[in-house]
């Protein structure tokens, strides 16, 4: 995988042996429930680290509160298990002050979209160059089974014994609405797809938002099974590939196309519909509308889109902040304390 040129700092050389996955495993016993989807997300995260080609000491994982947020303890990098919803704020301060670091935010549906909603909006709006991995299990696992902002309407949980009355958010729609420059979706049961999304997220210069459907087998088991189970996955999900037509299905016989202002599912070969009628995926579209439409697509009306929805370029907050300082120093020279001490009227007492 190509190393990002802008990372600048210490490169892996012959003097420093190449890192392996083992270098990113800590001595801490992993405490997630057996069968939890977080295990596979952790595995893919550990696997991709050596592939980034950067020194381990430059990688930082910052999390909030939730099962997902335990992840930093299991990564042998610098890590910060912070407070509920606030990881993006700590990450923003770290990245803005140390732009050469590789900063990863691990969060969940409650952490990012309930208490942390405000901070998610702004870290995306600012386009701080970091990666946000949101473990979406549509439940509050750590506190033992309350509903979350992504739980379906009417869901019965510990805190909603008669069913929820809140309509849920679509995380990717929120991200796109918050001006996110990189938006992707993976799922814990598809290792290859997750690897792809993490890799792309890292390569993207800007705030990369990756929603990972994650199964909480204790409090919300099987919530994605209907479209994600192996037998049906090919016909009920669609993997987005830039430049390729949006075709899916085991027989590759289904596609998405525009009908007026709406996307519709069509059968290729029927009623004269050919591959040429199918919408071609373009991650780089400046207008986010189509990406937004894709983010609304839910089973059974539509196949669930997976992969990279959007990847556009926009200056990053940390680079702009750094540049503004450099520009000022170039124009005005480096500051002398004495000059600002003496701003305004001064006088001498003999």
């Amino acid at each position, binding site marked *: 995988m190509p190393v990002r040129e802008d990372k600048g700092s210490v490169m892996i050389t012959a003097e420093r042996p190449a890192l392996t996955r083992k270098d990113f495993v800590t001595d801490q016993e992993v405490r997630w429930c057996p069968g939890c989807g977080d295990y596979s997300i952790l595995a893919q995260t550990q696997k991709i680290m050596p592939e980034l080609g950067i020194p381990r000491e430059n990688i930082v994982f910052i999390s909030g509160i939730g099962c997902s947020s335990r992840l930093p303890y299991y990564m*042998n990098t610098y890590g910060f298990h912070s407070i509920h919803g606030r990881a993006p704020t700590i990450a923003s301060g770290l990245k803005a002050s140390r732009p050469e670091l590789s900063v990863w935010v691990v969060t969940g549906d409650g952490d990012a979209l309930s208490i942390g909603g405000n901070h998610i909006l702004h870290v995306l709006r600012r386009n701080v160059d970091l990666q946000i991995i949101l473990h979406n299990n549509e439940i509050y696992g750590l506190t033992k089974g309350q509903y979350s902002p992504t739980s379906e309407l009417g869901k019965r949980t510990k805190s909603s014994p008669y069913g929820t009355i809140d309509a849920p958010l679509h995380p990717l729609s929120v991200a796109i609405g918050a001006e996110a420059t990189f938006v992707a979706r993976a799922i814990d049961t598809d290792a290859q797809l997750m690897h792809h999304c993490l890799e792309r997220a890292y390569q993207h210069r800007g705030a990369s938002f990756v929603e990972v459907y994650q199964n909480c087998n204790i409090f919300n088991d099987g919530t994605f099974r209907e479209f994600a189970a192996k037998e049906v996955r090919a016909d009920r999900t669609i993997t987005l590939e830039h430049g390729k037509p949006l075709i899916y299905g085991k027989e590759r016989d289904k596609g998405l196309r525009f009908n007026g202002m709406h996307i519709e599912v069509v059968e290729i070969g029927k009623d004269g519909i050919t591959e040429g009628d199918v919408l071609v995926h373009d991650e780089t579209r400046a207008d986010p509308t189509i990406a937004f439409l894709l983010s609304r697509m839910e089973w059974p009306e539509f196949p669930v889109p997976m992969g990279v929805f959007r990847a556009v370029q926009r200056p990053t907050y940390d680079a702009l902040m750094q540049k503004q300082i450099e520009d000022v120093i170039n124009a005005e020279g480096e500051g002398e304390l004495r000059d600002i001490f003496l701003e305004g009227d001064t006088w001498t007492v003999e």
Partner: protein
Amino acid sequence: MATVTTKESESPEHQDILELERVTIRFAGDSGDGMQLAGTQFTKTSAVIGNDISTFPDIPAEIRAPQGSLPGVSGFQVSFSSQDIFTPGDQPDVLVAMNPAALKTNLGDLPRGGLLVVNENEFSEANLKKAAYASNPLEDGSLQAYRVYQVPISTLNSGALKDSGLTPVQVDRCKNMFALGLMFWMYSRPLETTLHWIDEKFGKNPAVCEANKTALKNGYHFGETTEMFATHYHVPKAKLKPGLYRNITGNEATALGFITASKLAGRQLFYGSYPITPASDVLHELSRFKRFGVKTFQAEDEIAAVGAAIGASFGGSLGLTGTSGPGLALKSEAIGLAVMVELPLVIMDVQRAGPSTGMPTKTEQADLLQAMFGRNGESPVAIVAPATASDCFNMAVEAWRIAIKYRTPVIFLSDAYLGMGSEPWLVPDISSLPKIEPNFASDPATFKPYARDPKTLARPWAIPGTPELEHRIGGLEKSDITGNVSYDPANHDKMVRLRAEKIECIAQDIPDVVVDGDDSGGLLVLGWGSTYGVITTAVQRARAEGKRVSAAHFRHLNPLPPNLGNVLRRYDRVLLPEINLGQMRMLLRAKFLLDIEGLNKVSGRPFTIAEVERKIAEMIG
């Protein structure tokens, strides 16, 4: 104010010049009338010609209340003297009232016989009504007790500017310069400093520039030539410590102190903040200093501001955040996180009247208990509180010295009165200030995330980018030494006590409290924060009358100066004036088991010297 001599001088025959030791002027008008500007210019000139000065701006919370209304009144009080002064004066000697609302709001503070200069043109029926005057005070004899000068400031000003080319609204805006010019004449101040300032500020607009200068000069000449004023005054230079001075507000000094600390530590300053009165000026100041590499982050809310500062400290920068009372409340959880992860963090709180939204532009000292205890669990932080506007510089540097050396959050407790008031600042020699060593961890062989330095009990500061020191920190309880997550009962008890002990360790390099007065016996008046000036002056005056009273002031609030308890025990009684209901009094009573007495006023205004004098007299006769 002491009348010293009557001097014959170059002034016209009908005018005498009286020498005074100290004068206090209050400029008051509608918030659109430029009173802050007039006041700051008067202050600047007075400082430049050598008086000691002290100021107190009194601004309304609204951006623009209806013109002429009572809530729209804006005031600026400046006290200037040939002696060392510590407060902006209890009461003005002169009140300049630009409209009826300003008169209504401020007259109560003018003593009998005080000078009252009013802009008589603004005393229309409509304006009198807005100020809830049933009759015109200029005509109904209610101002008999004062020396009233009715000056048609608006018409004189517009007359002077009739050929200026400005619109009537622009012309009217210059009337504050006319009033200022008149005051300059009355107190024998030169116009140069303000003329120079006008040139700089309005250089790009020659017509406006000229008009302001004309208005200023006309006000001056009016005083000189009219027969309205039989006397004018002269306040000689003060004997201040020799050196280079500049006038500075507390907020400006705070900002300079923070930048200086970053230079002394050799690390970048990162300021995360959210605009809030009266702290926003620090954000404005620091945002200008990009050529010092200062990174300022206007966050989406108070919590993001402190979160970003913590992230910056995690990365080895000086992570700083600043706010007022309501913002400190929002930051509590994050400050608790900083306590648990033991990273350097400075939190500036420019206190204002509370509770809740309170009175945003009024001063108070009631966030002390919030600073001490406003976090869940046993969550101690260090607290420092500057005593004067220029002391804000010293304590800002001190806050960072403590934060870095002990790897701890430090709350810098200032207040609106200090933040917005100004005084002369003896500019320090930067090379004389001691460096602050971050002492980052670097050796993987000996590094343990929660091992402690035996003297400071601080843990190592190991920043991302340092090879082989990879570790994880967080808000869950930590095991001693290793820093792994631990729920072990004995460990938690130990860690709670260690964190408390670390804060107590800070006392080892805090200076002792010094008493101004007698070594022991009699009454001790004790203060913290902005009551310094008032207490010092009140005790000075009481001692001059032969009273057995001393003063002491402390700037480290947590931990306390190591000798404080012993000092307090040497006196028969201790009085602690505070602008709250007795927060420090409660803490000291509990800690030292001493019956400390309080003087408490919570009106959004500083104490007056007279209030403290009265209490001293009441207590010891």
